[in-house]
């Protein structure tokens, strides 16, 4: 029998409590001075109890001592376990565990981990008295409060799905307290970077890097175009095919109307966009990396090869200005009448994903932390560094002028006399348009279908600008940004990410708290049919190039407390017993008094 306390510090309360009880008892035992009308009768009594009464134990004292002990045990979290070997198991069943372990095997890491668990049971826990299994996904949860028999657990082990997890194993373990006496094994794809012991170890079958392809997002563009974002977590360049299923809405729901496919090339760790033209009446699209010819060596996880997107109704175009100044001060309202919306840099930082709703974003004296997924113009004069870093040039001298650029139509270098300009080191996909002292101060670029302009000198306020050349340049820039649109700035879409496969639906049956599987979900409210795309892409799960290491939870020395093992099953019973005894003593006391 293993006995212990989860909070032994509370036992220190025993000293003052017992002291108080003894004091109270002794005080109660002291003779009480009481006035009586006459002592004539009392004088006739024998003043000492007879022998039988003398040896009678002060039962009430011991009763109260017992009651106090019960309460203290409850507070200190007294527990006991029958002798035997108990095994605590944490199985990491996050999505990355669905990766095929190596090219030679068709089994995923989770299945191999489960097999390893069964082997461990045979080798190390032959005389197993109880096992407690906890899963990390969708959120950390154990199958039972206490320990179960191996027979009860073994049949369920084969049905554990690898699904997206809300919390990483690292964060889960970081919040746990584990006692040294606990036999704990963690089955994961993490490697341990801390010392392991016999009864406390992290087990994994994964040994090295794994390649993986994932669809990260689908972006619907204004000109009836969708861009499929594909991230290649591979170590060598690849060339594969992606399919796009276009769905139309009819009385039955959604139906595939067209299937398109396109090849894509991606370098190691590169993100590429593949554009597809779609019909006007398309309601949703499904993008899938063609599985044909893909080996597990370059795509270990198949679950992230598909993504869903809903094409919402046509909306009017919108332009977002991210500026500290007001709309009126910008002078842009005349250029984009009724289409302009203003956000402060702080507001934009709070909801950067909202940028996808806009067909054009103008950053005025503000450099975002990453390039948005819409066409954009970054006016970087005197701005804090973000995705770009700028350098101030005083009294600049134009050193190159791209005559071919459509931005410089109707303009010549003589039209410009800059006082200060800000040059920037730009990514390779930018083309310089104007350079000063051989540093780029105006550039255009394509990132997939997204157009970018870097603008290294003041643009706004547009209306008050005395420099007409700047006004022409800005109009040229806006025109270039909208150039490809037949109906400019006309569509709005949502960006969605990862998808769940059918097998993950099983998680609903196991855990009962999985809200919705990934896919396109049809919902009807107020006789209106809506479609919602749900995906669960996570770069952390899909990126298998990095071999992740994790520190085991810190063992709590000098303590039996463990968050994992429910060592305190008797707490409630103890408290209830103490209360019942307290109630009983109250009634006995009342009855005794009434009798008197």
């Amino acid at each position: 029998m293993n006995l212990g306390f989860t909070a032994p510090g509370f036992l220190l309360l025993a000293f003052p409590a017992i002291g108080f009880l003894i004091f109270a008892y002794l005080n109660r035992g002291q003779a009480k001075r009481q006035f009586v009308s006459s002592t004539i009768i009392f004088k006739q009594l024998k003043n000492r109890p007879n022998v039988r009464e003398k040896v009678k134990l002060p039962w009430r004292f011991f009763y109260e001592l017992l009651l106090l002990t019960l309460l203290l045990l409850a507070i200190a979290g007294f527990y006991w376990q029958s002798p035997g070997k108990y095994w605590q198991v944490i199985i990491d069943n996050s999505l990355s565990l669905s990766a095929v372990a190596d090219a030679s095997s068709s089994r995923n890491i989770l299945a191999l981990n489960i097999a390893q668990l069964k082997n461990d049971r045979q080798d190390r826990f032959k005389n197993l008295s109880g096992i407690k299994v906890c899963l990390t996904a969708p959120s950390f949860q154990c199958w039972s409060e206490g320990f179960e028999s191996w027979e009860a657990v073994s049949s369920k082990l084969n049905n554990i799905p690898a699904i997206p997890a809300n919390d990483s194993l690292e964060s889960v373990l970081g919040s746990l307290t584990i006692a040294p006496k606990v036999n704990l094994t963690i089955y994961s794809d993490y490697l341990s970077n801390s010392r392991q012991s016999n009864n406390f170890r992290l087990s994994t079958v994964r040994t090295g890097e794994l390649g993986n392809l994932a669809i990260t997002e689908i972006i619907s563009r204004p000109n009836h175009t969708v861009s499929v974002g594909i991230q290649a977590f591979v170590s060598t360049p690849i060339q594969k095919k992606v399919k796009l299923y276009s769905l139309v809405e009819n009385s039955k729901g959604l139906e595939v109307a067209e299937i398109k496919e396109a090849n894509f090339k991606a370098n190691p760790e590169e993100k590429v966009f593949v554009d597809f033209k779609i019909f006007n009446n398309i309601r949703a699209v499904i993008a899938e990396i063609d599985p044909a010819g893909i080996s597990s060596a370059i795509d270990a996880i198949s679950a992230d090869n598909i993504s869903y997107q809903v094409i919402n109704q046509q909306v009017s175009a919108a332009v977002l200005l991210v500026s500290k100044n007001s709309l009126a001060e910008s002078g842009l309202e005349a250029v984009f009448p009724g289409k302009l919306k203003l956000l402060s840099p702080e507001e934009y930082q709070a909801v950067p994903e909202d940028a996808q709703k806009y067909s054009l974003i103008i950053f005025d004296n503000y450099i975002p932390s990453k390039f948005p997924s819409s066409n954009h113009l970054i006016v970087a004069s005197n701005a804090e560094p973000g995705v770009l870093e700028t350098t101030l040039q005083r009294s600049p001298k134009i050193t190159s002028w791209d005559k071919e650029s459509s931005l410089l139509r109707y303009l010549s270098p003589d039209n410009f006399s800059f006082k200060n300009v800000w040059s920037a080191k730009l990514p390779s996909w930018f083309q310089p348009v104007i350079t000063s002292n051989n540093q780029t101060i105006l550039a255009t670029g394509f990132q997939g279908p997204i157009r970018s302009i870097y603008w290294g000198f003041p643009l706004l306020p547009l209306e008050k600008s005395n420099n007409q050349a700047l006004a022409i340049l800005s109009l040229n820039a806006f025109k270039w940004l909208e150039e490809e649109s037949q109906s400019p700035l006309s569509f709005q879409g949502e960006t969605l990410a990862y998808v769940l496969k059918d097998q993950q639906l099983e998680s609903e049956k196991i855990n009962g708290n999985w809200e919705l599987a990934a896919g396109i979900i049809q919902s009807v409210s107020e006789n209106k049919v809506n479609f919602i795309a749900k995906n669960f892409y996570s770069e952390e799960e899909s990126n298998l190039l990095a071999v992740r290491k994790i520190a085991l939870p810190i063992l709590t020395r000098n303590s039996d407390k463990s968050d994992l093992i429910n060592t305190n099953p008797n707490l409630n019973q103890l408290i209830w017993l103490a209360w019942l005894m307290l109630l009983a003593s109250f009634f006995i006391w009342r009855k005794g008094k009434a009798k008197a």
Partner: protein
Amino acid sequence: MPLPESFTPQLLRQLELQQVKARKAFLGSRQGAHYSPKRGHGIEFSDFRQYQPGDDLRHIDWNLVARSERFYIKRFREEQDLLVHLILDNSASMFNPGAAKWNRVVELALAIGYLSSMQQDRLQLAVPGHFIGKKYSGKNLVYKLADDLNLVRSNPTVTFDADLKLSFTATNFPGVAYYISDFLDDPEKIKANFQTLLARNLDLRVIQVLTPEEKLPQIGTKMIAIDSETGQEVPLEVTASSLVEYQKAFNAHQKDWQEYAYQRQIAWYSCDTSEKLADICRSVLGVSK
């Protein structure tokens, strides 16, 4: 001062149907409702006496003269009032553990006073330390009595026995005496007091007023009982068996007093403060008319 709340119209009506009746005839000072040993005017025939010069000729029984040829005077029992003595114990024990005992004493005293008032008797009060032989009579007797008793407080310094004797030194007319106390004092002292009263040829009636706690004290573990009058301390270890022992001792105490009273023709009544006043009056005070 108005009468206590316990003097309800029902109780007063009940008292009006009762009367204090002495067990023997006492000489009164004026006409009343009690037979007196004095011969004279009255309704009830007493005896004959030979005529002596100076007797009223109207009292000669002429029928007897005709039969015996001697002169005899017809005599009748005279009806006179009664002097009711009230002796109230106001020692500290009557005010301990609360005033319940003294309040009950006052109620009983007022009930006796009310009866006396109804019978046109006189009442003489003895409360040691406060009143020594104060007399009351007339219709307002009971209210005057209530006023006076309201002033009475416990006075542990008073010498009860001395005051009691002093109270009866000036008493010319014996009568019915109600002695109300808890009688939990030294028995010898109480007996001496009884002797003083009996020596005055009183029709002595004793009313013992106790509290329920005195009949059966509450259970404690250890206690030191302090006598409220003498301050004497008695250490006790009260257990269930000692309570039984207490009851036995108490019953023996009561029985001793009852036998003592019976032997000396003292009427002994015992009541406790939890009993209803009407019930006590019915059993203790007088008889129904």
